[in-house]
């Protein structure tokens, strides 16, 4: 007897409220648990018609994917570090993502609908579906709703945001943990969202799990238990929740104070250097996924506004982690 192409014992739906928008995610129990590990700080949403809907389906094999690549020419707009490609189909304004044969997603950012298809038994399928295949469509759908993503760790002090921007290996998470230990409020480990109001730019939290390397785990005694846990298949790092380890609170909204671009320096002491604003814009420009022109321009404009409203610095992070809270506290005060 042939098994059905879509393998789902039961499909459940969880709803969250994200910046006042209802977000519904539906899928099997394992998938929802993986998503909830990222979204659990978001309050539940009671709206019957969510603004954003994510539908995850597990399929028997790659021949039975429930997501098809749209016809016509698609532009490559991003190459995920885990492999695969992200294409934008200009005429339909659709985002299509595929990572090997294992996972596919099709996102209608303006309509707020995303469908994800995962091959059953793909070792890293659960992680891919709950991480890049959630994050990329979510960022693109929020972009159409005036919320612009910034790849940065965010900490808050007295309602003022300190944003640590930079790519992999810049030491964002190590710095974020150092500041959480010193009592800073938490905005996010890897992403925050920017939006505008009458008072200027607002930084909104995305209090996801914190991703740490084994080297970072070794730096903080309270994280050493993570080294004993099996790593999530597909994930290059280990995860924990800030509220499980530190007495930190999520600060949902802050005003920008400082934008810091960290880099690990082979020195005993850390050094903070003022940074040219044009240089900061060039560093932040790759945050804009080059899809639909008008919202992409608005994203670039929001990044420029962030730079205008923040002090910009480069931080050469030395081995004096204990000294960093004092060095950085002054930027947010």
């Amino acid at each position: 007897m042939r098994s059905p192409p879509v393998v789902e014992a039961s499909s459940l739906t969880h709803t969250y409220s994200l910046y006042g928008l209802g977000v519904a995610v539906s899928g099997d129990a394992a998938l929802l648990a993986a998503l909830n590990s990222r979204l659990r700080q978001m309050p539940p949403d009671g709206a019957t018609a969510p603004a954003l809907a994510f539908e995850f389906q597990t399929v028997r094999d790659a021949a039975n994917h429930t997501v098809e690549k749209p016809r016509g020419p698609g532009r490559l707009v991003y190459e995920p570090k885990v492999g695969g490609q992200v294409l934008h189909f200009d005429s339909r304004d659709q985002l299509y993502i595929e990572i090997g044969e294992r996972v596919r997603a099709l996102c209608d950012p303006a309509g707020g609908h995303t469908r994800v298809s995962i091959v059953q038994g793909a070792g890293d399928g659960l992680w891919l579906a709950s991480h890049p295949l959630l994050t990329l469509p979510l960022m693109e759908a929020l972009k159409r709703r005036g919320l612009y993503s910034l790849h940065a760790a965010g900490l808050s002090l007295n309602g003022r945001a300190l944003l640590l921007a930079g790519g992999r290996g810049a030491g964002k998470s190590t710095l974020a943990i150092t500041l959480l230990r010193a009592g800073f409020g938490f905005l996010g480990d890897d992403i925050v969202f920017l939006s505008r109001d009458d008072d200027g730019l607002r930084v909104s939290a995305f209090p996801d799990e914190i991703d740490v390397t084994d080297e970072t785990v070794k730096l903080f005694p309270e994280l050493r238990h993570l080294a004993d846990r099996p790593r999530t298949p597909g994930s290059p790092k280990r995860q924990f929740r800030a509220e499980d380890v530190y007495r930190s609170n999520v600060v949902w909204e802050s005003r920008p104070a400082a934008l810091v671009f960290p880099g690990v320096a082979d020195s005993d002491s850390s050094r903070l250097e003022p940074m040219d604003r044009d240089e900061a814009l060039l560093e932040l420009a790759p945050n804009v996924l080059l899809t639909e022109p008008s919202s992409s321009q608005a994203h670039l404009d929001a990044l420029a506004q962030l730079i205008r409203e923040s002090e910009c610095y480069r931080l050469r992070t030395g081995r004096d982690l204990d000294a960093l809270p004092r060095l950085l506290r002054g930027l947010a005060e």
Partner: protein
Amino acid sequence: MIERRSPEVIGLDGRPRRRERVLTQRLTGTVVLLNLENGQYYALNEVGSRVWEMCDGTRSVAKLASILSSEYAVPHESCQADVLGLLQDLASEKLVVAEG
């Protein structure tokens, strides 16, 4: 016979115009350009930014060079060569197109 030029080739009499599918942002001196078509990022310095601003399809390259040589008090000939070189680079990157 009418010579038809490719819009990506710009001469002194061509009137460069910014392409539509290019995102732009200027903070202080530098203009940052993001080309939706090829996913590339570009930065123009202060003079390049001034050239970019004037590329609205109404002025020839020769006219742009004349304006710049006056604004920056530089010799016209070298200015014209530099502006032409910049615009040819911008055209080959599909950031501007030549009118006329």
